[in-house]
């Protein structure tokens, strides 16, 4: 058991490392492609060649980031086959289909139109070039859609049936998978957060060059667009974040309880604005889980139901079998202990199915397959040692969630401040402290962005597929030492590549400080 936990931890750590590295590039690609398309649209509409050159500057930065991010997601697929082979097989074509579509979309749309974007200036018409820039932006977002469809299925599995003969889930309804409300919300949330991240990137780079008193007019214009895109992106991220919380309350109530550090729920549950949780041992011993907190009374119920008295179950309530009904009232469902019994039965029936199949007893096999199906809903609980094993790491989820929310709010203030300064107090754009605030917003937006994914992925633990497969069952039977070895190989290679990639970007930005961007070309 210790070895298995060790193996699961190292496999998860490796996956987290690669996913977080991948997510450094993806949101910037999504958002910067939009900003470049917007800038080029201004150029085409006004005919002002300065905008063409500003567009080219940001397009080069987009290209550097795009190239740095190429193939970083492939590593995750390698890990599926090696470290998570049980999971890879179990999900069947449900995961494969969206990823295949993503590969085709990414290759044809991005490869074609990105080439026109970079090589097509003076070779194709203005209109065709502009269309290519917009299609690149759309293609990048569509790629994200299919990845997030696959991810959303893991959080809320729909549109499939389990076939014990194939030992995998078989897709029965493609549209239920593709139009899963969790997927749609997750997609919009990720894309809009990419706009906010790219907005902060443009603000930060503009502030860096303004600080160096370089390309002042071009950077002021860029800064205004970055701040507007960032503010609109962040506003939409907040809106979809609310939608996400509503979805989480519906399909992953345990994650919501962990996000809020809510152990004992009830009607009119408060929303924690800021807080410090007690240690796990102190919480287990009883008493108030919060050492200190500032709460909005009834805030959580209000957020979920637009009603101050709605019921929100806490961690202990969910384990005991309490849940929210569709109308926000308290209902009773299966306790985790009962789910563990159902899961263990499904697992036992699957073992009997296996034996009957090996003995050629097709009648018994069919009967056991039916019994597996009857209990399959809670299949994953059969692997848990105790109901508490289904509780995610609460502290990490809680703090990540609140860092994301607080950081997002601070970022909104930064964007609004820059918009205000640009339109009303433009002379303030010479102030170094404002430049420093803009530069620091880049670090802030990356912290917020990564924290968001930590909430999404750590908050759903122990499930790799919600209720159906915990990480302990998903992991391959490989030596821990091999996962540890590849973890460190990745850590070294990724760090090296990240340094090389960042240095190319910084070098380009600094070299631009010595030129007049608006009169290039």
């Amino acid at each position, binding site marked *: 058991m210790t070895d298995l936990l060790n193996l699961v931890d190292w496999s998860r750590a490796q996956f987290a490392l690669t996913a977080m590295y991948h997510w450094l590039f993806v949101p910037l690609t999504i958002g910067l492609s939009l900003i470049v398309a917007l800038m080029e649209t201004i150029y085409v509409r006004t005919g002002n060649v300065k905008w063409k050159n500003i567009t080219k500057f940001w397009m080069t930065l987009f290209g550097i980031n795009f190239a740095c991010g190429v193939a970083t997601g492939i590593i995750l697929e*390698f890990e599926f*086959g090696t470290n998570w*082979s049980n999971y890879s097989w179990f999900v069947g074509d449900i995961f494969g289909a969206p990823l295949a579509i993503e590969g085709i979309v990414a290759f044809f749309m991005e490869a074609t139109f990105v*080439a*026109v974007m970079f090589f097509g200036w003076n070779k194709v018409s203005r209109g065709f070039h502009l269309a290519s820039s917009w299609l690149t932006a759309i293609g990048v977002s569509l790629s994200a859609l299919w990845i997030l469809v696959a991810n959303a299925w893991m959080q809320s599995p729909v549109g499939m049936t389990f076939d014990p003969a194939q030992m995998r889930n078989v897709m029965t309804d493609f549209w239920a998978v593709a139009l899963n409300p969790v997927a749609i919300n997750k997609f919009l949330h990720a894309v809009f957060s990419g706009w906010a991240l790219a907005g902060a990137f443009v603000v930060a780079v503009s502030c860096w060059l303004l600080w160096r008193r370089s390309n002042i007019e071009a950077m002021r214009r860029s800064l205004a667009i970055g701040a507007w895109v960032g503010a609109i992106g962040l506003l939409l991220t907040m809106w979809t974040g609310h939608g996400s919380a509503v979805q989480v309350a519906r399909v992953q109530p345990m994650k919501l309880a962990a996000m809020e550090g809510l152990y004992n729920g009830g009607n009119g549950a408060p929303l924690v604005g800021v807080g410090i949780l007690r240690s796990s041992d102190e919480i287990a011993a009883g008493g108030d889980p919060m050492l200190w907190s500032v709460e909005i009374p009834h805030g959580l119920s209000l957020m979920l139901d637009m009603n101050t008295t709605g019921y929100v179950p806490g961690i202990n309530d969910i384990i005991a079998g309490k849940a929210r009904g569709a109308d926000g009232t308290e209902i009773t469902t299966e306790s985790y202990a009962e789910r563990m019994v159902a899961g263990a039965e499904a697992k036992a029936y699957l073992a009997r199915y296996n034996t009957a199949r090996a003995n050629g007893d097709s009648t018994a096999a069919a009967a056991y397959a039916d019994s597996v199906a009857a209990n399959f809903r809670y299949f994953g609980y059969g692997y848990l040692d105790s109901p508490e094993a289904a509780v995610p790491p609460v502290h990490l989820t809680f703090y990540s969630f609140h860092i994301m929310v607080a950081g997002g709010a601070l970022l909104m203030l930064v964007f609004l401040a820059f918009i205000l300064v640009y339109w009303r107090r433009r002379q303030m754009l010479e102030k170094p402290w404002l430049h420093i605030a803009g530069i620091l917003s880049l670090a802030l937006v990356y912290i917020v962005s990564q924290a968001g994914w930590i909430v999404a992925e750590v908050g759903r633990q122990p499930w790799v597929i919600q209720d159906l497969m915990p990480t302990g*069952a998903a992991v391959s039977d490989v030596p821990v030492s091999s996962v540890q070895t590849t973890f460190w190989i990745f850590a070294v290679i990724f760090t090296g590549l990240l340094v090389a990639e960042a240095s190319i970007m910084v070098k380009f930005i600094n070299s631009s400080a010595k030129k007049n961007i608006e009169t290039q070309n």
Partner: protein
Amino acid sequence: MNLPRSVKAVYSLYADGFRSMTVGRKLWALIIIKLIILFAILKVFFFPDILSINYSNDAERADAVRNELTGR
């Protein structure tokens, strides 16, 4: 052989584009190094697809996963 004008135009778009790259040359070098590390080293030596290399057909793979998931 005479290539259609559209094919020539596409060819020259890419050929001229690659020739006139500045920052792009470094990026392509980085991409190629990265792909070599990923596919020629990591994938080959460190990331085998366990079920594909250990079992010859899908039925065997299904049996293997069933045994794994009922044995844990």
